[in-house]
Structures are given as C-alpha cells and as structure tokens.
C-alpha cells in the first residue's frame, strides 16, 4: 500500500478550489496518466476527487493529508470520508497524500500536521469529499440505468435503485463516476444517521505495524543509495575547528567526507562503515560560550526570569485583591524538565536528487516546509520536487544545515 511511487498525482490531477470550505475536487485524468497510475496504485485507479479513489475491485482508497505519527489520522480521516460515502469499511484503504496545495491544512494553509487539529480541521472538507464522491456514483448509476439519481440510494459500497432493486457496486461505477463533474456543495448527513463516525473503530494501519511491512523513513531504499551520518556539534553554537577526513576515508566502504555548516557528514556504502568513519574523524570543536551551560544553570535562569515582570497577554479581574480576600491559599512551584521532541527512530531522510527532479522521503509533520527547503537547496522548481511522507513516525522537521 505504501510502495514507493515515483508518479506525482499532482501532475495529472486537475484541481480547482471551491469557495467556502475549500473543498478541492480533481477530475478527468488523461488516459495515459490514468493507465500509469493504475499500474502503480493497483486496485484504486479512479479518482473521484483529491481525497477519494475507487477501484474496479471495489476498493475505496482515501488519500490522507495529515501525517500518521500514532495519533490516528490514517483511520479517522478515512472514517469521515467513508461515512459520507456510505462505503463498506472493510474495503477502505488509506494512502498518504503527496505534497500539493489541495492537501494544505484547511486552517493553516500549508500542508502540515500538528496542534491536535487533524480531525476537527478536516471535519467538513473530507466529509464533503466523501459526499461529493457519493453523488457522482449516484449520478453514474442513474445514467447507466436511465433513471433519475434521486430514485437511487447508497449502502455499503453499492448504489441501489429504489424502484427496481437493481444494484451496482461502487467498483462497477467508479470509471464512469470519475468522468462526471463533481458537485459543488453536496449535502452532508444528519449526524444522527452516522454509522461509523463516533463508533469505536480499529485502526487501519495496525496489520502492517505487526508484520514488519510498514515502511518508515529509515526503511526506504533507492537503488544505488549511499548512507551518510553526521557528526554534530556537542554544544549549541559550537564551531568546527578541525577534523581528520583522511582517517575516516581510510575505513573500507567510506566514500566521502563533507564539511557542512554544522558538522561533518561521512558518506559510505552502508550505515556501519559510515558510523566507523564518523568515529575516526578526530573532530575538535570550539565549543563556544555555551560549553558550560547545564540544566541546573538553565533552571536557575528560568526561575530568575519567572520572578521578573513579563509581557501582559491578558488581564482579567484583580489577582492581588482576590488572593488577599481568599479563605485559603495554596502555594506550589511546578518545575518541568526539558522534554525533547525525540523519536525512537533516529532522524533520517532519503533524497534522490537529479538534474531535473528531486524525490525526498522523510517522516515529517510539515510537507510544505520540507518541499520549500528542498527547492531552496536544489534550485529546482516546486513542481519538480516530491516530498513523500508515506512514513509514519513522530517527528518535527529537522533543522536544516543551510
């Protein structure tokens, strides 16, 4: 499901923004591109819009524009789409969205995941995508049978004609439906009629997380790939004084040693020689003024800062008066340690940069930022860059070295 795909859906998804909720519907694929996509994507080649594809085998693929880090959008967003689509939940699959404007966060306007916003910010848009797809399937069935779509209903991946009881599966209707014009403002279900939303539902991504098949950033392999590890400064703001590139290069398998803005990268034909190469660098750092900074000093500085008057963010009532007249007073000091936004999977990124294209795979919460950074670093055009995040893990975009 998450095989590495070099095709960018963006290239052949014709999209248009709608007013209001920002629902974006893609239509009409050129035949060739559709065939290419079908062979890549397997079962679900027919896009009804940017969020829903349906295959001839009846599989419903929901394209999820929020990163899965364990918090569940690979399940919750398909649930919302499937609810409005009247899809058979057993036939619903998920797929990570490529980087494209139609997948931008509905509030923040950039493609990103964070702040516990994935479900509520998509609540209207992806339900509309499901509802629009449903309308298109209804219309396709009506056209097939020569009846009004109003006389048809949907249930469990099928369109049923009320009068005759005739049935067509979504898979049978997908191709025809994908050629129809998407409705602009499809009606949404009355929440009282929800069958899926609000019900306990098992995660769609559990099976592949129990059999080793889930592909995380570190698992991506590109033919001819080399592995780089970076020796990073031990202290914030430290500067590189010297290192021994020759000693690192003497390790069998090490190919190159490259000084970067904040450290030294050792490039090798695998992780192990790269790590050995890094250990051989004999780096000397100028650790700078922060060398003696430690947690205790920092805590003291924070406490000192907390005693000083700060910037007024909100003033409501009179604390001094209220406390003065309080029957009981409690005093406590709360102190939290620095909590690293660290993942079990080490920071990593796979890049396939060519003269006219760049493909990047990384566990990320911020696809637009990654794409822009790649554009800046490579000088390529945004449309030549595809940043994949089909890889689930918890991560923030790593700091860039330039």
């Amino acid at each position, binding site marked *: 499901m998450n095989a590495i795909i070099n095709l960018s859906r963006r290239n052949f998804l014709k999209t248009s923004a709608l007013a209001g909720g920002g629902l974006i519907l893609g239509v009409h694929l050129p035949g060739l591109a559709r065939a290419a996509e079908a062979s890549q994507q397997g079962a679900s080649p027919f896009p009804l819009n940017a969020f829903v594809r349906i295959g001839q085998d009846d599989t419903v693929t929901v394209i999820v524009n929020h990163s899965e880090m364990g918090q569940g959008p690979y399940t919750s967003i398909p649930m919302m789409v499937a609810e409005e689509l009247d899809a058979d939940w057993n036939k619903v699959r998920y797929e990570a969205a490529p980087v494209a404007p139609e997948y931008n966060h509905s509030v923040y306007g950039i493609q990103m995941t964070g702040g516990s916003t994935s479900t509520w910010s998509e609540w209207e848009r992806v339900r509309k995508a499901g509802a629009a797809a449903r309308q298109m399937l209804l219309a396709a069935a009506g056209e097939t049978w020569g009846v009004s779509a109003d006389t048809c209903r949907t249930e469990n991946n099928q369109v049923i004609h009320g009068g005759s009881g005739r049935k067509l599966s979504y898979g049978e209707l997908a191709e025809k439906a994908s050629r129809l014009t998407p409705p602009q403002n499809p009606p949404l279900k009355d929440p009282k009629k929800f069958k899926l939303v609000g019900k306990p539902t098992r*995660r769609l991504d*559990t*099976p592949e*997380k129990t059999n*080793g098949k*889930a592909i995380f950033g570190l698992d991506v*392999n590109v033919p001819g790939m080399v592995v780089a590890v970076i020796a990073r400064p031990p202290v914030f703001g430290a500067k590189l004084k010297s290192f021994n590139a020759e000693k690192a290069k003497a390790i069998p398998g090490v190919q190159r040693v490259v000084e970067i803005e904040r450290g030294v990268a050792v490039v090798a034909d*695998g992780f192990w020689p790269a790590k050995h190469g890094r250990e051989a660098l004999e780096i000397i750092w100028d650790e700078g003024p922060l060398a003696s900074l430690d947690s205790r000093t920092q805590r003291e500085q924070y406490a000192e800062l907390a005693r000083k008057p700060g910037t007024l963010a909100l003033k409501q009532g009179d604390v001094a008066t209220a406390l003065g007249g309080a029957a009981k007073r409690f005093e406590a000091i709360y102190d939290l340690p620095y909590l690293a936004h660290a993942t079990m999977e080490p920071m990593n990124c796979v890049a396939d940069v060519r003269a006219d294209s760049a493909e990047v795979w990384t566990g990320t919460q911020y696809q637009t930022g990654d794409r822009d950074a790649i554009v800046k670093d490579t000088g390529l055009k945004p449309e030549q860059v595809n940043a994949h995040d089909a890889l689930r893990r*918890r991560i923030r975009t790593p700091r860039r070295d330039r």
Partner: protein
Amino acid sequence: MTSLTVNRKKYELDVDPTTPLLWVLREKLQLTGTKFGCGMALCGACTVHLNGEAVRSCVTPLSRAAGKEVVTIEGLSPDLARPLQQAWITEDVPQCGYCQSGQIMAAAVLLRENSNPSDTDIDDCMTGNICRCGTYQRIRRAIHLAAKLKTERK
C-alpha cells in the same frame, strides 16, 4: 564469507563479520521490519531471534550469527505470529508502530516458553522493549489474549 540462515533461507554473505546483524538484515537482505533505535541494546526495537533466543541485533556481530538460525518479524513462525498479530490487532496496540516488531519478537519468545504468562512474567520479559508512545498496557493485554488464542488453536 559468513553462512547463516535467515527466516529459513540460507545465505552466504561477503560482509565484514564485525558488522551488526541489524545492518546485514536491513541493508543487505532488505528485511526492514527489524528497526534501528539506539544502536546500544537499550531500546529493543532491533530484537530478532538467534537460534530461538531474543537478541539485540544492533549489538550482535554477524560473526556471532555464523552457522545459526536468525528469525525476524518477517519470518516469525505462524504458530506464534498468528495469535500475536491477531491479538495486537484486536487490542489496537500500536500507535506510531516503530517499536512493535521488537515487542512482538520479544513476546514470541515469552509465549513459546510460557503458555500462560502472568502480568509479572510479561513485565519481566518485556522490560527491555521501550515504547515511546507508551502502549505498554495494551501490549500486556495483547500478550494475555495471544496466550489464550494460542492455547485455543491447539
């Protein structure tokens, strides 16, 4: 040349024998279900079976696996994989999922040795496998369920 068996398949590998088994599995055999977490035997994400014992592949040199049988998450025998995976799905164990191959490989050894582990048995056996998402309670429930499923299957 190092000879070893991985998931019941024999390999002759021309790899520096000091290379940790983890990198041989991931980079040479493309068995990426075994994860790299700490590289220091502290987290358990790289747990595989070496002649049936759970080992940390990140600190197991290839030479130690020579002539032995390695089993990874991809090759776990169905009598253990099926109840464990079914239990993991029923209990919705994983969140991010990164540690779960290691968790399941550790749990598989426990289940093979102990058909009805107590909470304490589970905690003792699983203590070296860290989960950053904190799925420990569900892992425990899933191991109890897997034990039940495995017994019922017999």
